[in-house]
C-alpha cells in the first residue's frame, strides 16, 4: 500500500505514461512555452508602441515644425516605430509630390494619403503579429489535451480488461495519468485565450488611434495644400 502511494507522484505518472500521451504532453508543453514567448513579445511590443504613440503625439501637437520632426527621425531610421512610420510615409510622399512641378493639389493629397494607408496596414500587421498563433493555441490545446486523456483512459481500460481484475487501485493511476494531459491543455490554453483577447483589443485600440492620427495629419496637409 505505501509503495503504491509513493509511486503516485506526478513526475512518476508522466514518466510511466504511454508514448502517445507523452507526445501529447510534450506538444502541449511546447505550445505553452511558445505561446508565452508570444505573450511576452506582444506585451513588450505593444507597450512600446503605445508609449511611442503618446510621445510622438505630444511632440506633434507641441507646435514643432513638421520638417524638423521629419528630420529628427532621419538619424534613427532603424528605431522608428509605430505612429512615426505613418507620419514619415505621409510626409515624405507629400513633400516629394509637392516638389514635382505641375502637381495637382488633389493628386498630392491622394498620394500622401495612400502612402499613409500603406504604412498603416504595415503597422497593423506588426501589431497583430503572432496573435493568430495565440488564438490557435487557445482553441486547439484543450482538444489536444482531451485527445491525450481519452487515449490514456482508453489504454488503461484496455489494461483493466486484460488484467480481468478491475479495482479502483488499478483504474486510478491510468486515469490520473491521462488527466494530466487535459490539465496541461488547459494550462496552455487559458493564458493564450486571455492574452489573445487582451492583445487584440489593445491592437485594435492602437490602430484606431493611428487612423485618427492619420486623418488629423491629412487634414493638416490638406490645409497646407489648399492654403496657397
Amino acid at each position: 500500500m505505501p509503495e503504491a502511494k509513493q509511486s503516485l507522484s506526478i513526475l512518476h505518472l508522466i514518466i510511466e505514461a504511454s508514448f502517445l500521451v507523452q507526445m501529447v504532453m510534450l506538444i502541449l508543453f511546447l505550445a505553452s512555452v511558445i505561446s508565452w514567448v508570444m505573450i511576452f513579445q506582444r506585451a513588450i511590443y505593444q507597450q512600446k508602441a503605445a508609449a511611442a504613440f503618446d510621445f510622438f503625439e505630444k511632440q506633434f501637437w507641441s507646435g514643432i515644425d513638421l520638417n524638423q520632426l521629419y528630420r529628427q527621425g532621419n538619424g534613427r531610421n532603424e528605431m522608428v516605430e509605430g505612429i512615426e512610420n505613418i507620419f514619415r510615409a505621409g510626409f515624405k510622399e507629400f513633400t516629394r509630390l509637392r516638389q514635382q512641378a505641375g502637381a495637382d493639389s488633389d493628386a498630392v493629397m491622394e498620394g500622401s494619403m495612400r502612402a499613409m494607408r500603406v504604412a498603416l496596414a504595415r503597422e497593423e500587421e506588426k501589431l497583430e503579429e503572432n496573435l493568430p498563433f495565440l488564438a490557435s493555441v487557445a482553441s486547439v490545446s484543450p482538444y489536444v489535451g482531451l485527445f491525450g486523456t481519452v487515449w490514456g483512459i482508453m489504454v488503461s481500460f484496455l489494461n483493466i480488461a486484460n488484467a480481468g481484475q478491475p479495482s479502483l487501485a488499478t483504474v486510478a493511476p491510468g486515469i490520473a495519468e491521462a488527466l494530466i494531459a487535459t490539465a496541461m491543455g488547459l494550462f496552455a490554453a487559458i493564458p493564450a485565450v486571455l492574452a489573445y483577447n487582451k492583445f487584440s483589443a489593445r491592437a485594435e485600440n492602437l490602430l484606431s488611434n493611428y487612423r485618427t492620427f492619420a486623418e488629423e495629419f491629412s487634414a493638416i496637409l490638406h490645409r497646407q495644400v489648399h492654403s496657397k
Partner: protein
Amino acid sequence: MKLEKSLSLPTFLSVFLHGTLLVLFLGNWDFFKSKEEPYKPHYVTATLVDVKPKAKAAPQQTKEQVLDSKAYEDLKNNKKQDEQRRKEAEALVQSQKEQQAKAEEAEKQKQQKIKEEAAKVAKAKAAKAEAEKKKKAEEEANRKAEAAKKTKREQEAQEERRRIQAAQQKEEKHIADSNDEANVKSYNELLSERVAQNWSRPPSARAGMVAVFNIDMLPNGQVVGVELAKSSGNFAFDNAAEQAIRKVERFVEIKDVPIDVFERNFRHFQFAFNPEDLRQ
C-alpha cells in the same frame, strides 16, 4: 535582426517561467509527500491492534506447552511404573509356574509312592488323596485368582495409559484449536471490518440484523463465491451485505493465514455479518 532582438527577452522569460513552474510543482509535490509521511506510523499502530490477538495467543501457547511437557513427563513416569508392574507380574507368574511344576512333580512322586504303598492303607490313602486334591484345587483356585488379578491389573494399566494418551491428545488439540480460534476470531473481525468499510447501509437496516453467508475463498483471499445461508429477514440488508462482500473481492489479510488453518476455517466458511453502526 530586429525580430531576433525582440524575441530573445520573451523567450528567456517564457522558459524561465515554465522552469520555475515545473520546479515549484514537482518540488511542492515532494514536500507534500514528506509532510504526509509522519501520519503513517498511526496507520501502522492501527494495524498492530489487529495483530494483538495473535500476540496474546502466543504466551498462552507457551504456557500450555509447559503444561504439555509436564503431562508428558507424567506419562513417562506412568509408563515406567507400568513396565515395572508388568515385570513384577511376569516374575510372579514364572515363580507360580515353577511352584506349580514342583507341586505336580511332588504329586506324581506322591502318587507313585501311593501306588507302591497302595495295599498298605486304603483309607489313609483315600483321605490323603482327597486332601491333596483339595490342596490342588485350592492352589489352582489361588493361581487362577492371581492370574485374573494380574490380567485385570494389566488391563487397568493399559486403560490408564490409553486414558492419559487420549487426554494428552485432547489437550494438544485444544491448544491448537484455541490458538487457531484466536486467529480465526481476529481474522473474522478483520473481514467484517473490511466488509463494513465497503458497506452502504440501507435505510431499512436495524440493529440486531444478522445475515449469514457461505463464502468460498482462495488462499490469496480472493472471494470466489458468496451465498446467502441465513437471511436477516430484510431483503435490502441481505443484498447490501452481499454486495459489500463482493465489493471487498479480496481479503488481503487472508494471505498471512497458514494454509492448514485456512483450509480448515476459510476455504468454505460461514460469515455472519452484523454491523454495529445500526439504528435501533
